[in-house]
């Protein structure tokens, strides 16, 4: 009973704040609504037995990635009052909603057809206590999924190098045409906005 109440409250919060997120004009408010949605999703993770991943979602996602978003908004000095110009025609906007609702219906039908017929619906038994714990996730990552896990380190290295190369450039050459191009070895981010 209490599980059902927790599920409905978290689901409503997750979906509601996601809707609020995409309907904001101010990106800072949007980030804050997304954090609320992620906290509610972490509750759903924990209900499904994924204790470790729920903690990772809060720490890594709300703690690190969304703070990176806030940092970029601060760096760009956005105030949420930018006029983005007139919106498109109503037919164009309505067609976007229509496509999304069609996608939802299609996904529901695909899931119903493929999953619910082949697998017993619902949670069949109480999970063993090590389900979703740090030890069992680590055991899986270092045995069956060792190579993908090691490859993520290369992915992260590539992402670091890519981010530094793209955002850490000192000058845009088209803005200062007359200046001599500074060498790009110095990679500190210069706030020129």
């Amino acid at each position, binding site marked *: 009973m209490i599980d059902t109440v927790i599920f409905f409250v978290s689901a409503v919060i997750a*979906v509601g704040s996601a809707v609020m*997120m995409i309907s904001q004009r101010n990106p800072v408010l949007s980030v804050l609504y997304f954090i609320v949605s992620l906290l509610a999703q972490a509750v759903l993770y924990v209900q499904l037995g994924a204790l470790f991943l729920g903690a990772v979602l809060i720490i890594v996602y709300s703690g690190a990635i969304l703070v990176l978003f806030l940092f970029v908004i601060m760096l760009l000095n956005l105030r949420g009052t930018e006029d983005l110009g007139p919106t498109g025609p109503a037919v164009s906007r309505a067609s976007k909603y229509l496509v999304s609702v069609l996608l939802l219906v299609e996904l529901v039908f695909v899931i119903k057809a493929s999953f619910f017929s082949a697998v017993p619906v619902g949670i069949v038994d109480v999970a063993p206590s090590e389900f979703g714990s740090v030890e069992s996730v680590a055991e899986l990552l270092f045995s069956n999924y060792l190579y993908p896990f090691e490859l993520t380190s290369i992915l992260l290295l590539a992402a670091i190098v890519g*981010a530094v190369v793209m955002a850490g450039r000192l000058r845009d050459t088209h803005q200062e045409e007359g200046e001599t191009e500074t060498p790009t070895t110095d990679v500190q981010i210069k706030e020129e906005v």
Partner: protein
Amino acid sequence: MLSIPAYIIVALVLFCIGTIGVLITRNIIILFMSIELMLNAANLVLIAFSRALNLMDGHAFVFLVLTVAAAEAAVGLAMVITLYRNRETINIDRFNILKW
């Protein structure tokens, strides 16, 4: 305890909200967050299925997806900074230099 389909429906609704966000917004930062929301919906589906099948493999997938999402956010925000320097706007309708 609730059955698994309820969690799947929540994940599908979140995914579709992310799709609507990608389609209707013109703020590039909110567009990025909508993409992150879609990744999170996929994670919720993976965790729900791994609970239904009593297998832990979905948790490893979710861990790898979170890593990819972190890398994507870092590179994407670097691109946003570069675009803002070049165009002085965050309206994605203005980033149309590849449009013929």
